[in-house]
């Protein structure tokens, strides 16, 4: 796909970092505010889609590498299942870090509270794993569909030239 005009590229340069940071904010605060793994991952993937549209497919492939995304996706999924396995001393998916005083382990005050980030045990870890997996996965989908669109456009242009 063709790259867009200079104004769009300048605005993209400013803004795509903020979109990625906002996405990570949504992932990390999933246990306090609305959001979590999937929602934050989708926001980060929309930053990649923005890069793809504004720079065109040929230039965007230089800084979005499919192999790294594939590795990140597998790492995210494996981290999710390994964290679930770690609770196997009691049950699968047991929240062994909640209310325990260690990493993410403060006591939770029941009811309405201003929200402490250091609570809820295993949930932020799983949110981060799912967020990693979702943004890598959606990034791969967007890149491969752009490849497919490029291929069909080349085929159509070749047919129209004949």
């Amino acid at each position, binding site marked *: 796909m063709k790259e867009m005009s200079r104004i769009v590229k300048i605005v993209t340069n400013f803004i795509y970092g903020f979109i990625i940071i906002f996405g990570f904010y949504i992932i990390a605060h999933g246990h306090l505010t609305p959001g979590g793994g999937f929602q934050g991952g989708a926001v980060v993937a929309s930053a990649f889609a923005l890069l793809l549209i504004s720079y065109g497919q040929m230039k965007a492939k230089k800084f979005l590498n499919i192999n790294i995304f594939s590795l990140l996706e597998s790492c995210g999924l494996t981290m999710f299942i390994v964290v679930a396995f770690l609770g196997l001393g009691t049950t699968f998916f047991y929240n062994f870090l909640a209310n325990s005083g260690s990493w993410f382990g403060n006591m939770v005050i029941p009811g*309405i*509270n201003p929200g402490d980030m250091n609570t809820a045990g295993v949930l932020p870890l799983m949110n981060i794993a799912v967020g990693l997996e979702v943004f890598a996965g959606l990034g791969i989908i967007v890149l491969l569909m752009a490849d*497919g669109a490029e291929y*069909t456009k080349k085929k159509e242009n070749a047919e129209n030239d004949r």
Partner: protein
Amino acid sequence: MIGNFPYITVIIYIGCGIYILMFQKNLIKLAIGINLIENGINLFLITLGFKKGAVAPIYTQAPSGQSMVLPTPQALTLTSIVIGVATTALILSMAMMIYKHYGSIEVNEVRRLRG
């Protein structure tokens, strides 16, 4: 009667989706039809948890003294939305592959398996 308005919207969504699936011949329009049915079902699930005069079920800095809507259907709807994203991505990829092989995305021209 006015409280039933979300449910009537659900029926309209699902009805439009089924109409599109039955009568349209373009593969991308079939993907849109499935997406419409799915939006209708998500709306149905969220409407099930409604209580009069309640706020969103978030404890962080919530206003005190008010009831909250049921949070379980919201978790079900979230899962359904994620599944819908994956389904749409798969159907659109298959439509692209069919275009690559046959050069057309009308159902009448693409169909080779009969009997």
